[in-house]
């Protein structure tokens, strides 16, 4: 007697049923749900952590130095303690407190920069595609030029000239470099949509430009906008982490990148303090994989042909 005999449906049938359900509601995409789950996990870590953990432990010297996570031993033979479950860094800061504050900060920079960049991109992309002519030329060349310039290098110049920045300021600076791809994407979409029947119909019936842009075209762009938004979040976080690892970015606010920077500078790799750089690295990887899954899921939502492939 195997357990399968009692089950009325075979495995294949269950899978089939699931697939049909999934077909009914494309938003119930497992990749999308997993990706969103990972990012929500980071946000929850930030929210719940604030209530249950003592955040004063992010200050230098608030804890013993270089303690390992629970169940491990460091080179000096000290083992982890329950007061600092995932260890402490070389400056005497509790890593759990650091990531509770730092991980949401990193995500915040990415989301804010991307949101602003997208808004600029939507505005410019629509203007270029819809108005055409001189406006289009200027915006197109501008986007082409700016897409070649790596944001990191300009921001390095900026931050080394100005010194310390706030998180919001950094997000604003990064936003100045993530509007190009959405602009190009939206422009191309708008150009092709302009030829479509429903837009010409709206034009003929005397709808205003604003109405055509936002009520007729925008809903069709939503999947592209989401996809582009997530891609910009990734670019923004990569840029932010890059700046932080070079020792720039906010100097007094804990972020994942800055923690890695301090760990490298203190020689954490040679001293085998793997938790110091490893835990922030792991969290960043979780953020990036979450964003990737959301992007793949959105692709499948907006492009049903891909759903059949996987």
């Amino acid at each position: 007697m195997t357990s399968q005999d009692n089950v009325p449906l075979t495995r294949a049938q269950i899978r089939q049923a699931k697939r049909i359900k999934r077909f009914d509601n494309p938003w119930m995409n497992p990749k999308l749900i997993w990706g969103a789950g990972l990012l929500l996990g980071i946000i929850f870590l930030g929210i719940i952590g604030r209530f249950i953990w003592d955040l004063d432990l992010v200050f230098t010297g608030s804890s013993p130095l270089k303690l390992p996570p629970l169940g491990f031993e460091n080179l000096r033979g000290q083992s982890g303690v329950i007061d600092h479950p995932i260890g402490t860094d070389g400056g005497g800061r509790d890593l759990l407190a650091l990531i509770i504050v730092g991980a949401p900060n990193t995500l915040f920079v990415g989301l804010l920069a991307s949101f602003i960049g997208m808004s600029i991109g939507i505005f410019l992309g629509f203007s270029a595609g819809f108005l055409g002519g001189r406006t289009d030329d200027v915006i197109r060349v501008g986007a082409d030029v700016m897409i070649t310039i790596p944001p990191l290098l300009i921001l390095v110049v900026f931050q080394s000239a100005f010194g310390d920045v706030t998180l919001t300021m950094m997000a604003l600076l990064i936003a100045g470099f993530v509007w190009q791809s959405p602009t190009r994407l939206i422009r191309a979409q708008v150009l092709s949509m302009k030829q479509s029947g429903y837009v010409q119909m709206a034009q003929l019936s005397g709808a205003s430009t604003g109405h055509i842009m936002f009520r007729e075209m925008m809903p069709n762009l939503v999947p592209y906008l989401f996809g582009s938004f997530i891609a910009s979040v990734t670019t923004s976080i990569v840029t932010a982490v890059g700046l932080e690892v070079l020792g720039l970015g906010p100097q007094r606010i804990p972020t994942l990148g800055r923690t890695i920077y301090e760990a490298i500078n203190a020689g954490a790799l040679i001293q085998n303090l793997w938790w110091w750089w490893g835990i922030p690295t792991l969290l960043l990887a979780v953020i990036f994989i979450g964003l990737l899954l959301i992007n793949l899921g959105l692709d499948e939502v907006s492009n049903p042909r891909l759903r059949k492939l996987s």
Partner: protein
Amino acid sequence: MGRIPRDYLINRLVTLVLTILIAATIIWIIPRLSPVDPAEIALGRMAAGAGSVANSEEILAQLRANMGIDQPLIVQYLKYISGALVFDFGLSTAAFPTPVSTLIMNALPWTLGLMILSLIITFVIGNLLGALMVWDRSPKLVKVAIPAAMVFTSIPPILSGLLLMWIFAAKLQWFPLTGAYSIFVEPGWTWTFVQSVLYHGFLPALSIVVVTFGFWALGMRGLMITVQGEDYVKLAEAKGLKPRYILYRYMIRNAILPQITAFALKIGLLIAGQVLVERIFAYNGMGKLLYDAILNQDFPVIQGVSYVIILITALSVFLVDLLYPFIDPRIRHEAN
């Protein structure tokens, strides 16, 4: 092989020149907006070295004159732009009388070497793997690589660099932790030096390859799926051509074209990622130079490095755009 259409060439050239000009201008404007006075930083460095500085006002004035920041802004700007054209960014303030261009020229071959090596490896491996993921005759094992490729692509090279460094350099000690060649080896065109360079370059290159091959593989997979359904592939199969021949000459040949454009768009991010990898591996390239300059507030070097990297990016994009009509003859017809 025809020639490049003139309109297309002019269009690309204008973009190239504009990119370089705008980037150079931004790099020039930013420090001028900052309240920090470079002359005061230089004076501060002197004071830190000597204990105290007499006649500080006169020295400040002299420093400003040396740096050229006592002149009108427009003169400064024109001087800067004409200097940037011949890679003259003045003198480094941290390594004082050394010109910035000398520092950059010493670092540049390392960066370019690492970049070209890792780019070629990832482009070949990634595209081949992506093609094999779709090809129905490839071993099942290749299909397993799809999720792995996806996960790796999402991670920036600095994270993979840290991980590889820890495992292979700190833990297993198979590879050196930092540097571009052993300090016991005399630089020169000797076999031991080349060996040392390859040995030291392996981990930095690997950390870039590991996280970038997936980008090409996934892009290629999508393109191959489209190409697979095309009539000319069906025809080739019906003609009884060898499957391998169809894969290389019919499918990959057509699917690879958009990948080359993707390359042009991606190169900026790739270079920025590599700068960071060089920084964590203390590799003798632009990344390390940039990081040291940031630490020392060596502004001319920061400017020079940023400018040169942006220049490399813009030139690569330009070259890819120029080569494209040769690889894809259809482009030429469109332009006409």
